[in-house]
């Protein structure tokens, strides 16, 4: 209903605007007509003037009639002129007349239209009034409707909110319902679990009760044991303190021992050097004593009493013994002073050198020395020469006077595990040297003792010697990381077996 009202209003406005436009046009035309009438009035006044002028002129003419004759021709021309002008004027008048009629007609038309417009205006005014009334009514109705619409909208929004609220509440309720469903299932499950656990706990409680009893028993036992341990700990601490003191004491003693060992080592070296030098230098004067003694004995023999000769011989024996001691001391000191330099050597060469050195004794004793299948060995050459010298000279010295001395020297490379000797490593290769003689031998129980320094089995009146020779032999074998074994039987010869590690193959 409101829209219809609005469209009517719009038409009314348009019609009014049209009317106003037409009115403005009419007023313009009226103004033009007024101007045209004033023009016509002016032209009539002109025509009256000119007619008056023509009357004067006609009098003039009449007066001038005579003249006119004269001038008739001029006048005729002038008349014609005038006639023409009149005609022209008439044409214009006719045109004006037409224009007037046209104007009149237009005026009439205008008046008619004005009258129609007036009527139309009145009609319009009436219609306007009606429209205003209706507009007022419509305005009221509109207000009423607007108010009602507002109210409806308010209620609609209120309802909308209320609806949303309800929808939300419904959703919440559904969620809670599903949650409750889940929670219920959970509770049911938990209840079942609780019952299971309750039964388990019941069993466990019985077990714990039993264990507690056991623990109490053990706690009592532990209490006793703890007291025992505490006592033992105290004892241990006491002993630890004692040990600590003892350790400090030992550390101190060790330091002292180390110092003394170092001092002894230096002293030993000095002593050995002294032994070597002194022994070496002692040889010469001693030899001269012996030489002078022999010269006196030979050249002054007749001048000496028997007792003097005997004493001279004893002196010579003492000098010889001293010479032997010096020789042995020199040999013994050499073993210690020289650095240990192991080199490949042929045993056969060493034995040949020793044989050359002992040539006299060998001839004296009518001895044969058999050296067969000798192998090379990594040895300290000069020490090994001393070793062989001592063993061979020993064999010659203790030979059986009734039979020629026969010494057999052999060597071989052999693996430790084939020897059945505890002190040898089964995996290593050994050089095994044997020196065997057919001399006076020794009782088996002396087999260890003969290697000790200054230990002799025989009086030096029978067999000269210092008791150092075999000690040197043993020391040299030990320098070669080996062992020496002596086996013998009285009057059936002696055998010396030497074993020392060898990197040569069998």
């Amino acid at each position, binding site marked *: 209903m409101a829209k219809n009202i609005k469209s009517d209003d719009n038409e009314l406005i348009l019609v009014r605007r049209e009317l106003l436009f037409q009115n403005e046009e009419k007023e313009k035309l009226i103004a033009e007509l007024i101007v045209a009438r004033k023009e016509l009035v002016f032209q009539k006044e002109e025509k009256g003037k000119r007619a008056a002028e023509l009357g004067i002129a006609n009098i003039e003419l009449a007066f001038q009639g005579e003249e006119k004759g004269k001038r008739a021709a001029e006048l005729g021309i002038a008349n014609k002129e005038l006639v023409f002008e009149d005609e022209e004027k008439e044409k214009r008048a006719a045109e004006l007349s037409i224009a007037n009629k046209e104007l009149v007609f237009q005026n009439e038309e205008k008046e008619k239209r004005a009258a129609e417009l007036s009527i139309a205006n009145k009609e319009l005014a009436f219609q306007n009034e009606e429209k205003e009334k209706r507009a007022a009514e419509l305005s009221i109705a509109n207000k009423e409707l607007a108010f009602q619409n507002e109210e409806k909208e308010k209620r609609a929004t209120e309802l909308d909110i209320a609806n949303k609220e309800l929808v939300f509440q419904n959703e919440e309720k559904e969620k809670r319902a599903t949650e409750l469903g889940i929670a219920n299932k959970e509770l049911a499950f938990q209840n079942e679990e609780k019952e299971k656990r309750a039964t388990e706990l019941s069993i466990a409680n019985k077990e714990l009760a039993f264990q507690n009893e056991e623990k109490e028993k053990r706690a009592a036992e532990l209490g006793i044991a703890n007291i025992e341990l505490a006592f033992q700990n105290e004892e241990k601490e006491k002993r630890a303190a004692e040990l600590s003191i003892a350790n400090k004491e030992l550390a101190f003693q060790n330091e002292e021992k180390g110092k003394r060992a170092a001092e002894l080592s230096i002293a030993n070296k000095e002593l050995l050097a002294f032994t070597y030098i002194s022994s*070496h230098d002692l*040889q*010469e004067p*001693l*030899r*001269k004593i*012996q*030489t002078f003694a*022999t*010269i006196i004995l*030979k050249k002054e023999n007749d001048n000496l009493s028997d007792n003097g000769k005997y004493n001279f011989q004893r002196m010579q024996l003492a*000098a*010889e013994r001293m*010479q032997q001691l010096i020789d042995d001391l*020199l040999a013994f000191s050499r073993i210690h002073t020289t650095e240990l330099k192991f080199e490949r050597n042929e045993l056969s060469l060493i034995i*040949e*050198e020793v*044989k*050359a*050195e002992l*040539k*006299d004794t060998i*001839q*004296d004793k009518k001895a044969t020395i058999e050296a067969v299948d000798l192998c090379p060995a990594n040895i300290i050459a*000069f020490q090994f*020469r001393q070793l062989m010298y001592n063993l061979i000279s020993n064999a010659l010295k203790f030979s059986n006077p009734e039979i020629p001395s026969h010494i057999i020297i052999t060597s071989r490379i052999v693996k430790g595990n084939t020897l059945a000797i505890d002190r040898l490593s089964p995996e290593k290769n050994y050089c095994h040297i044997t020196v065997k003689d057919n001399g006076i031998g020794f009782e088996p129980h002396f087999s260890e003792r003969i290697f000790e320094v200054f230990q002799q089995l025989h009086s030096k009146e029978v067999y000269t010697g210092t008791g150092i020779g075999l000690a040197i032999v043993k020391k040299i074998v030990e320098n070669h990381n080996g062992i020496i074994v002596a086996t013998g039987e009285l009057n059936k010869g002696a055998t010396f077996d030497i074993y020392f590690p060898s990197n040569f193959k069998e």
Partner: protein
Amino acid sequence: MDSKQLNILLADDDIDDCVFFKEALAELNIATKLTAVHDGEKLMKLLTSKTNVLPHILFLDLNMPRKNGFECLSEIKENEKLKGLPVAVFSTSYEQEVVNLLYKNGAQYFIRKPAEFVQFKKIILHTLTLIMQENISQPKKEDFVLTIQNS
């Protein structure tokens, strides 16, 4: 050579040993002429002098002042005129290393001075006999060290 006199040169700083040597020679039934010097420098000076006639043998002690026996031996064996001279080294002590070195350096014999005078005499006789038999080239190693049997 038997008919000729044997020229012997002894280099030893020890007066006693020189006396022993002289006495021993005197008791031997050999025509000899002994010349003795008492240090290595004198020995070399004598050997290299232009007027000198080389002896038949030199007995050389090792332990001498100014120039020891080893040095003298080396100089003799490096000298074209002297290297044919037989040198018998005469020493109190016996050490195998020393003996090996002397053999290597060209000595003719090694003699350890014996303690007994009889032995002393014998070893000199033995040495001179070898020289008189014209054994003047270096022997085998096993015959380098001269010894005397007791018998």
